[in-house]
């Protein structure tokens, strides 16, 4: 799905993840399977959301794309960005891509900004690091971005330090930093966690405006945010994709019992919780991973691990009910 735009877009997916597996060996025999055989393709201009609860592997996936996983992570599979194999690149090559072509808006604005560096400099940093603009122009661009983010007095704001701003404003600064080098792909990890309802709505509107001509990979557990910002949703559970499809279709008619449970547990649907808890990533069950919590199990669900089954022309479900 490509948004209408005036300029040429390359054919083929912008980001293509194939068979990605990320494991963290914890003890000699144990290992945590954070991401298990995930395939994901994001076309230019798409806004895709990775939805799931904590521990489902969505953040690990985002970090894997950026090449920012901790040293003890064992990765297998392919990650291609514009047809370059990211996993085959060494660190200097990856550094040239980070910030400039793929940028990440991290969780938790309180910890993601350098407390002793002025905000303007932090926004200008990607431009300086990648030598896109000289110092003074970079600073001007930072001020321009701050204005675009809605700061009333951007020149003055650029001279302040992060602690002088509220949570919502820091989140805007994080978005500005991510956008400053004009990346093509933006990965946003829980951009509105910890923010009040009113501020959250403002930030989401801001992100939506700014992403109009870019590609977005949103990582969140909040269906509402995902529904607002993205046109395709990918639901993850226990390290694998369990459902995928266009937003409006998926929300109107969720197929996988987990997605259905998520929708039912929203405030607007009456808060019906999904019983039980997600399995620990070190100790995954043999059959369907959602089996213990599923309301409508079939005989084979206990033993057989369901494959990802295509339904229609752009939906997929991992459930035996659709075999």
């Amino acid at each position, binding site marked *: 799905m490509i*948004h209408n735009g005036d300029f040429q877009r390359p054919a083929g997916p912008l980001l293509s993840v194939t068979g990605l597996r990320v494991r963290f060996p914890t003890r000699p025999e144990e290992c945590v399977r954070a991401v298990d055989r995930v395939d994901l393709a994001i076309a230019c201009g798409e*806004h895709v959301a990775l939805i799931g*609860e*904590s*521990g489902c592997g969505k953040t690990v996936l985002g970090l894997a794309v950026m090449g920012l996983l901790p040293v003890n992570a064992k990765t297998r599979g392919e990650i291609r960005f514009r047809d370059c194999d990211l996993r085959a690149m060494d660190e200097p090559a990856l550094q040239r891509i980070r910030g400039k072509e793929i940028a990440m808006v991290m969780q938790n604005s309180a910890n993601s900004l350098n407390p002793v560096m002025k905000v303007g400099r932090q926004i200008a940093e990607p431009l300086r690091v990648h030598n896109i603009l000289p110092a003074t122009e970079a600073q001007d661009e930072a001020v321009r971005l701050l204005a675009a983010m809605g700061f009333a007095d951007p020149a003055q704001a650029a001279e302040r330090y992060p602690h002088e701003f509220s*949570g919502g404003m820091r989140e805007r600064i994080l978005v500005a930093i991510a956008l400053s080098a004009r990346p093509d792909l933006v990965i946003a990890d829980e951009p509105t966690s*910890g923010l*009040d*309802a*009113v*501020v*959250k*709505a403002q930030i989401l509107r801001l992100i939506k405006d700014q992403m109009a001509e870019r590609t977005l990979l949103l990582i969140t*557990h*909040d*269906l*509402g945010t995902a*529904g*607002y*910002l*993205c*046109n395709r949703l990918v639901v993850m559970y226990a390290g694998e994709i369990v459902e995928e499809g266009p*937003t*409006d279709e998926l*929300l109107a008619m969720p197929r996988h019992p987990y997605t259905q*449970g*998520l929708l039912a*547990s*929203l*405030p*607007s649907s*009456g*808060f*019906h*919780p*999904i019983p039980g*808890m997600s399995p620990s990533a070190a100790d995954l069950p043999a059959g369907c991973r959602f089996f213990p919590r599923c309301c409508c199990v079939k005989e084979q669900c206990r033993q057989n691990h369901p494959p990802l089954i295509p339904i229609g022309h752009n939906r997929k479900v991992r459930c035996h009910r659709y075999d």
Partner: protein
Amino acid sequence: MIELTRVSKYYSTGFLRRTRTSAVEDLSLTIPRGTCLGLVGESGSGKSTAGRLMLRLTDPSAGSIVFDGIDLTRISKAALRKVRPRMQIVFQDPDTALDPRMTLGASVAEPLLVWNRAGRRDAGDRVLDLFEMVGLQPELVDRFPFELSGGQRQRAALARAIALEPDFLVLDEPTSALDLSVQAQILSLVQVLRARLGLTLLFISHDLQVVALMSDTVGVMQGGYLVECGKTREILDQPSHPYTARLVAAARESEAWFGKAPGS
């Protein structure tokens, strides 16, 4: 059950303590027995301070707080300690709500032991009963908080709060740090406990949707003032204060996102 009259809380800061910031200003509220009052507002609005004032975990600078006929602002420290078991609080951040060096069982048993409600041996049984009430597996008694998920820690915090069988429970943003699916679990648990134990609740949150579902009455706070207070239905349908109207609009907007086609 609990009644605040013209309560204010100021903090003095700055050189020689001359600057005064008010966290709560001239607040008057009543929570009848058996009901749930939801307190909404953005961060810094004073709602958390209001909750703590009701338990007298912080001292008010002015005004009176009456709990079941007892004026908390006038009683001695010892008498206040005696009242404490009847009013408890569950905090927002499950990561620090429990002592990281105590097992779950020890944390939940602590109130029982402090007040001698149970000897060391009986305490173990009581803890298992409480675990069952909040939906925690009995094996978790010997685990430490860092080994568990946020949802489990909040359940343990709830177990600890109800251990002394309080009449009044303050919930300070209990689900803000949790995922949506876990949030639903914790909130339905709170409703079950409320019915089972006949609790009076104060539910503090910045999320109007959540508050609306849990509470009979809603109070809206902004900048330390209570700007509006009334029955949930009335507040949602006809908000009279502009700030309330903005909150209601934001809540409706996020509900509407589900029916809306993105990109439009």
